[in-house]
């Protein structure tokens, strides 16, 4: 399942890239994600909790930055995890590209997500919507944090952002943001190349 989206941000491309190529920041922006251990070499142990109504899954695994090109401002993050209750595995490869646009940056995110197990085996396209929304939230949050302009968010010390799973309260806030609505609009145009 390929999820593509992009967003513009009022910040210098290099600063945006510096932010996004750091796994800590990505984790901090990703709903329900948390890095739990630094394994060195841009590799981290972490977990992602998904909650959609009564449906929950908690993936633990390893995330690593597998490619980074500061000149082209391209970074590829790969995360592989498995559900704590043996319900399946999840694998995501996210390619981020930051390009300069007048007045700021444009970020394109291309996420190839593969989920196995029970969650992936329900024919009604809920997981596609859920995945799309999670990536959408990541984008929203990243934009927010970058535009807040606190370089500190990129520092490892700030990793301890409490992981909050995708759930009602978090969503309510984002739903109200006009930007988020536009983003969802774009997301829905995403083709499910699964």
């Amino acid at each position, binding site marked *: 399942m390929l999820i593509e989206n992009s967003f513009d941000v009022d910040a210098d491309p290099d600063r945006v890239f510096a932010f996004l190529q750091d796994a800590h920041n990505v984790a901090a922006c990703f709903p329900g994600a948390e890095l739990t251990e630094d394994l060195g070499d841009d590799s981290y142990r972490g977990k992602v909790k998904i909650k*959609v*109504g*009564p*449906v*929950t899954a908690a993936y633990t695994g390893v995330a690593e930055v597998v490619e980074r090109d500061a000149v082209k401002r391209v970074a590829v993050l790969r995360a592989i995890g498995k559900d704590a*209750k043996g*319900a399946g595995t999840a694998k995501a490869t996210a390619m981020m590209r930051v390009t300069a646009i007048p007045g700021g940056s444009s970020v394109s995110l291309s996420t190839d997500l593969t989920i196995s197990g*029970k*969650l992936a085996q329900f*024919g*009604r*396209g*809920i997981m*596609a*919507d*859920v995945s799309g*929304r999670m990536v959408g939230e990541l984008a929203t949050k990243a934009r927010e944090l970058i535009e807040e302009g606190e370089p500190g968010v990129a520092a490892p010390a700030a990793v301890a952002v409490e992981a909050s799973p995708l*759930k*009602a*309260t978090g*969503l*309510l806030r984002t*739903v109200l943001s006009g930007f988020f609505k536009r983003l969802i*609009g774009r997301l*829905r*145009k995403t083709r*499910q190349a699964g």
Partner: protein
Amino acid sequence: MKPGRFTYHAPRELGEALELLQEFGDDAKVLAGGQSLMPMLNFRLARVDHLIDINRLGGHLGEPRFDAGTITIPALVRQRQLERSEEAARVLPVLTEALRQVAHPQIRNRGTICGSLAHADPAAELPSVLSVLDATFTLVSARGTRTVAAADFFLFHLTTVLEPDEILLEVSVRRPPPNQFSAFQEFATRRGDFALAGVAALCEVDGDGVVTECRIAAAGVAPVPQRLHAVEGLVTGSRLGETSASEIADAARAEVEPTTDIHASATYRSRLTGVLVNRALVDIRTKQEAAHA
């Protein structure tokens, strides 16, 4: 397919139920009819440490109230019970029409109206119907009571504004004026299946047959029941049938962006929404004409 371990609670008083929810919060789940939750527990897709069964909360939650201005459906009113209620059929015919298409009688015998709403499956019939009825949702917790409009209640697949410690106590609808006509149309592959798309529609018509108010919501084409405001705008202010079907269908198609799944492509679902909107409006017009005949 046996549910995982949980602790079962069967409070006898609402206060007790709310205390349990406050205590267990995210680790608890309310069990009403159980016709959506139990399959998920059996599949072990849903996990819960504490199951708060509200079925023993007492009679007053099991009876709909048809008051002068408002119709109220409390938490334990079964779908089948309301489907068979003559009074409900008279005052909220669109709800009765939709209820007949919810799964099968054996499911509706236990399934509750509020349970289906709180479960918030966007492909289900009731969320779209209560959306066009502009229902008010009453949420209660140990912290207090609040009301939420239908437009604000649904957030995403299986996700509503209900906080972990809240119960959907009841849903209420203003008693419809006599000039209100409504329809529910859905298309499912097989009887009782989730619809590929569904449409609930409602119009209020003045003495000249001009639509003064129109609310349309689509099911199964978005992560929430989706109001079709552009179509509503097209319909409002003219007589039914005056706006061309193709114009309405185009507007409806443009307004929804469904997801492709194994059952149907997004393109099909968009087309189908247009078709069903028109069929619902034709149905409404027929009812309106019959009323004035």
